Every structure is written in structure tokens, then in C-alpha cells.
């Protein structure tokens, strides 16, 4: 009880001294995308908002496209985080229409998408890190290209790249997984049995954090080719690496006006791939939940997140920062 009176007193005195600028923020909704890194980002953000800015946070589990559609139709949720913008034209439209404001690149290095082979395969057969090498020895990669599920953005791009690569003629079959789970399991199973594997995946993910993989060399990113590859009926599919994906935090315009302090914090919130990879690898080895991974980040990277906060929030969280 002592504590409660203490907070009440704190709020009261703060209210007297700082006035409107220190007003508590109201209720806030934030997305939680259904992959590990996004969940860590969301947990960290909601912790900081709840404890540092006294927000009433609602977490909305969703994925990229439904979240964006929801913003377009209803203006909710307030905060979209770990949004991979490269596949969603809607995103550009929403920003242009002034419905969404891009605050920061939440993964500062951007997302990496590529075709990979496991490290041990690359060590044993270095030639497999090039498409020519794979085409010359399709058996060494198991004769299969593990592609992402139908309906994912990468599906069409991979298919066009695959067509252009001539892998099919060389005897590599394109196997399209039914879901992201089986794609990840395929990597894990291959690693356990030290079997050949060749396919698409992306970083930062716990899968790539746990199982070291080597990128298969591709011709450098070419905008025109890549754009055409993204179309289902691309007439001239060509080979092009993926561009670095922008992974952003975006908020509704309404929210950025309503809660400028929180928006300022979110604008600074950003993780490097190394940090995120380390957290995810820790999570995988410790069998930890997403929330515990967030706690791991909060306890081990204090300097990083302290820099995101404003002075008031830092004062509120000072017990953790010592």
C-alpha cells in the first residue's frame, strides 16, 4: 500500500510541476506480428510504454496485411511495428494518404532475404554457394529448392528468380511449403541429420540465429528486374538479389498527434540485427518465451533502451537502470 500512495503522490507532484506536458498517456494498441523478433519488439515496446509512459497498452496479435487493412479501414491499431514494407504497396498508399506516419527503422540494418544453404554444406562443398555450382551438382543440395508458402510476398519473386536461374532444367525441383512452420522445420531437420538443404529464408529470425546458413550468391539487386519479378505475370523474369527490406515502426497520424511523447520514444526504438540475433539465439537455447526474451533484452541492453526514453520515463524506470 505504501507504494501506491507513493505513486499517487508522485503523479500529483508531477502534475503540479510539469502541467499538461506530463499528462499520462491513455490507451494504446500495438500489433504483435506472428514471428519471434516481432514479438520481442512488441513486448519491449509495451513494457516501456506501460512502465515508462503509464500507457494502457493493448497488444493485438496479427500479421502484416491484416494489420494494414485494419488501419486503412478503421484507423486501428495505433502502432504497427516490425512492418516489412517491401511487399506491401498498401503501405506506401497509407503513408501518402497521411493515415500512417513512419517513425523509425525498427531493425536498423533492415531485413535480409536470400537463398541459403547450411554452413556445413558450404564447408564441405564451397562451390555450392553459387548458382552455377548448384546447377552443376543438383544432387548435393538434395535436388530440392525449399520455397516459401503460397500467399507470402516472396512466393512470386522466388518463383520468377527460380525460372530465370535455370535450376529446374538442371534438375532442381521447386518445393513449395504449406506454411512457415514446415519451412522452418525443414531447416531444423536438415541440420539435425546434417543433410543437404537449399532454399529461401530471412533474417533476423531465431532459425537463422540458431542454424548458421550461408547465402547463395546472386547477381546484385536490380530494381527493374526485382519489380518485374514481383509480378505474377512478369514477362521477362531475371535474376536479382533481394534488396535490404525496410523494417519499420509506423503509427497512425492520429496517434502521433495524441501521444507525441510516446511517438518520440518509438521513433528512437531500433534494434541492430546483431542485437536481435543475439536475443533470439538466447531465446532458442534457453527455451524461453517471447516475453522472457524481451526481459533478457531489457536487462542486458539497458544503455540501448535508456537512450530511447525521455527524462520523465527514465526517472520512472530508474530502478532498473542502475
Amino acid at each position, binding site marked *: 500500500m505504501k*507504494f501506491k500512495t507513493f505513486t499517487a503522490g508522485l503523479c500529483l507532484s508531477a502534475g503540479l510541476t510539469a502541467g499538461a506536458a506530463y499528462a499520462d498517456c491513455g490507451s494504446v494498441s500495438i500489433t504483435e506480428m506472428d514471428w519471434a523478433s516481432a514479438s520481442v519488439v512488441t513486448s519491449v515496446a509495451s513494457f516501456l510504454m506501460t512502465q515508462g509512459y503509464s500507457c494502457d497498452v493493448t497488444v493485438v496479435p496479427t500479421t502484416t496485411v491484416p494489420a494494414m487493412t485494419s488501419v486503412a479501414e478503421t484507423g486501428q491499431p495505433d502502432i504497427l511495428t516490425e512492418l516489412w514494407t517491401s511487399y506491401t504497396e498498401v503501405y506506401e498508399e497509407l503513408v501518402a494518404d497521411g493515415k500512417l506516419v513512419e517513425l523509425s527503422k525498427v531493425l536498423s540494418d533492415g531485413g535480409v532475404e536470400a537463398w541459403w544453404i547450411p554452413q556445413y554444406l558450404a564447408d564441405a562443398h564451397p562451390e555450392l554457394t553459387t548458382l552455377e555450382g548448384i546447377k552443376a551438382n543438383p544432387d548435393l543440395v538434395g535436388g530440392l529448392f525449399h520455397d516459401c*508458402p503460397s*500467399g507470402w510476398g516472396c512466393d512470386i519473386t522466388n518463383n520468377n528468380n527460380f525460372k530465370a536461374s535455370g535450376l529446374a532444367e538442371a534438375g532442381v525441383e521447386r518445393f513449395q511449403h*504449406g*506454411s512457415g512452420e*514446415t519451412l522452418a522445420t*525443414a531447416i531444423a531437420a536438415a541440420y539435425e541429420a546434417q543433410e543437404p538443404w537449399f532454399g529461401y529464408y530471412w533474417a533476423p529470425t531465431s532459425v537463422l540465429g540458431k542454424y548458421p546458413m550461408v547465402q547463395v550468391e546472386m547477381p546484385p539487386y536490380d530494381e527493374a528486374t526485382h519489380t518485374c519479378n514481383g509480378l505474377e505475370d512478369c514477362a521477362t523474369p531475371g535474376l536479382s538479389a533481394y534488396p535490404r527490406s525496410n523494417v519499420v515502426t509506423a503509427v497512425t497520424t492520429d496517434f502521433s498527434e495524441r501521444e507525441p511523447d510516446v511517438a518520440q520514444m518509438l521513433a528512437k526504438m531500433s534494434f541492430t540485427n546483431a542485437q536481435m540475433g543475439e536475443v533470439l539465439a538466447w531465446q532458442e537455447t534457453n527455451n524461453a518465451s517471447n516475453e522472457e526474451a*524481451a526481459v533478457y533484452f531489457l536487462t542486458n541492453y539497458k544503455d540501448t533502451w535508456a537512450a530511447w526514453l525521455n527524462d520523465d520515463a527514465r526517472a520512472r524506470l530508474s*530502478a532498473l537502470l542502475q
Partner: protein
Amino acid sequence: MAYYDGLFDRLGLRDWCDQSVETAPTSMQALLGQLGGGDTEQTIARIPFPSLDTLHDSCAQIPQTRDMTAGVENTFLAARESLKLVLDPITQPLSWMLDGALWLFTTTPWFIIVPLLVALTWYVARSIGVTLFVAVSFLFLGFIDHLDVALETLSIIFVCTGLSVALGVPIGIAMSRSNTLQRMIVPILDLLQTLPTFVYLIPLIFLFSVTESKLYGIAIILYAIVPVIRLTDLGIRLVDPDVIEAADAFGMTKRQKLWGVQLPLALPNIMAGVNQTIMMSLAMVVIASLVSAPGLGVLVLRGIRNLELGVGIVAGFGIVLLAVILDRASKAALGRIDKNKNAH
């Protein structure tokens, strides 16, 4: 201070509790506690349930629930190799059958496969209305460019229901003959029907290579085999005892009774089971697509993932159309059997 600290102290277990303490990941609650926000005031109304996690807070020797699930996982993984050794060769023919059926249905030109399927409908149903409906449906699916995926789905269903019937009817017969066996199998059937489909998909993913078609084949068969077993058992048990008595009076052997009396009389029930099995394997098509089954389910999933409403609705409609076709054709076949029986 966790709630049950006192309990362990009083039991004299404190020393045991504190030896070799392994640091578990900090929980969000513990972090909030560091902030000074954790209200440690203990009232009667707030006694936490003595669950593994709560007890672990007081005594580090007590495993957390997380350790228990990890234990289950490890047991399963340890048994996996030996399970694989047995199950892999047994189930291999399923992969061949599925791949073969898919190849057959997708490489045969449409002007051969569609008339063949229509002829098959006529053969089993002998009904002009049903045959005409099937023909029109296939032409419609072809017209909207969904014939290939629909045929993929259909080929999976043919293989899976075929196997379900081939396995389910003998199991049902065995069950009808032995009450002990029935008592043993019924709970398994209940389990298969009520277990969320994903729960048995997970071990399957670990057991078999995800790139093999038997993965979804097994998932579909496990789910769809139940009605045909149940209704075969029921059908045979429902045969009028007087008829069996008559058969006994004629001095029929067990085998003669089965083939000559019980199965023919139970046929309407068995056919109803087959009909249900077909419907249930169709219901599994979308879920099986999550483990890489081709066909209309893939399009439904794409529709859900990208909110491509049209794609999802059209593919869903395709599944419904297939369901109606299969239902009508098998019902017409059932009706014919009933009619034949009544004619005798």
C-alpha cells in the same frame, strides 16, 4: 519472497531447495518486481494455486512447467529415431500412391480425365441427374481455371478415402466381433475426432520429412477413417439377431455368415460411413495444405493470408462443389444398394 517459501522452510526442505540453483530466465513479473512495483502484500484472497511455476519460485528444485514440456519433447525426440525406423517403411507406399495419383490426375489431358470421371459417376450412381450435375460442375471448374487444383484435391481424396475404407472396414469388422477390442478402440476413435488437428500434425512433422506427401496423407487418413470404422461396427452389430440365428440354424460358418449375411445387411450403414469419410477428408484438405498438400486448400490459405477475398471465396466454393459432387455420387450409390436390397 514467493508465497510458498514458508511451506518449504517448515518442511525442512530449504537446504534441498537451494542446492545447485540453476538460473531460469527472468520473467516479466520479476522484472516488474525490480522496479518496485511488485505488491508483495499477501492476503487470503490472493493465495496462488500451488502450480509447478509457483512452487518453483519458492523452491528452485521443483521443475517449472516449461521443464515438463521440454521433458515431453525430449522423450518424443528420443523415441523418434526408433519410431521412424518402423513407421517410415510402412508408410512409404502412401507417398508413392499420393504422388502417383497426383501425377495421373494432373498429367492426363482434361478431355480424357473429365469424361472418365463423369463415366465413373454414371457407373456408381446410375442417375442421369447426378451425372449431369458432375459434368456441368467439372466444366464450370475448368471454365474458371480451377480444374487442375480441383483435380489435385480430388486425387488426394481418392487415395485417402480409398485407404481409409480399406483399413477402416476390417477394423470395424474386428471391433464388431470382440467387445474387448471395441472398448479399446472407441477411446482412440474419440481421441482422433476431438484432438485439434494441429496437435497430431506436430509430431507428424517431426516424424516424417516435410517434403514428403505421406505427411498430409496420414493427417487426412487419421481424421477421416473414424466414421467408416464406427459405422461398420455399428452396422454389423445392428444386424437382426433372428437373422443370425437363422444363419446358425443353417450351419453357416463364421466366414460364411460374415460375407453372406452380416456384410450385405450392414452395407447401407457402411456406405453411410464411407460417405462421411469422404466428407471428412475433404474437410481436412485446407488444414493439410498447411503441411504442403497441393490443391484448392492452398488457394484458400492464400486468400486468408493476403486477404484476397475473391481467391479465398472462389476456392472455398470449389471445395463445396467437390463436396456436393462426392456426396451426391456416393449417396446415389448408397440409394442403389438399398434399392437392390429391397428388390430381393
